[in-house]
């Protein structure tokens, strides 16, 4: 069965700290991978995506993610977080059946 696991449910960081959010997926075929961000009271917006090619992908607002096929992982990183990065972050995959499967989300709080 297809699934996405996000192991960090809540993360609290100070401004300027580095961020890494874990994402592991379970799927035997070719997947498209995504990270979405949801600011308080808003809808999901795309941060970055991986379809193929360079496993290190860069997204908006200084975020990047690395696809490691052997580990079935797609971790999100940012070298220096800002207070405005406070939000909930979702990892997702799109499988061959064209359904998007989401992880349970990680709530990030950045302290000013």
């Amino acid at each position, binding site marked *: 069965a297809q699934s996405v696991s996000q192991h960090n*449910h809540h993360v609290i960081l100070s401004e300027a700290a580095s961020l890494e959010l874990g994402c592991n997926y379970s799927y035997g075929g070719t997947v*498209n991978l*995504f990270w979405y961000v949801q600011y308080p009271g*808003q*809808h*999901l*917006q*795309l941060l970055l*995506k991986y379809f193929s090619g360079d496993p290190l992908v860069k997204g908006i607002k200084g975020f990047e993610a690395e696809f490691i096929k052997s580990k079935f992982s797609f971790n999100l990183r940012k070298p220096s977080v800002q207070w405005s990065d406070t939000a909930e972050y*979702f990892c*997702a995959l*799109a*499988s*061959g059946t*064209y*359904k*998007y*499967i*989401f*992880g*349970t*989300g990680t709530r990030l709080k950045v302290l000013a």
Partner: protein
Amino acid sequence: NAGVTQTPKFRILKIGQSMTLQCAQDMNHNYMYWYRQDPGMGLKLIYYSVGAGITDKGEVPNGYNVSRSTTEDFPLRLELAAPSQTSVYFCASSLDRAEAFFGQGTRLTVV
């Protein structure tokens, strides 16, 4: 370019009432989805559609129905509302397996 438009934004229903959540997209996307979001649970797929006239169940379809008579519209029907259907509902659309675009959401409370 409106993207994905959902109405209403908020609604309170009494137990046993019914309602339709509207979703429309203007990007000519073939795929459309309905998710519900509950705290700490992520997004659960209710129903999806791969094109006009074709719909299929997701992970949590019980208590809901959908139709897709046009490419643009994908309404979600709740029959006999129950407190367990209190949630935030998001409609999304995509072109094949590319990025999914989300609507602003409908916050539904069943009392």
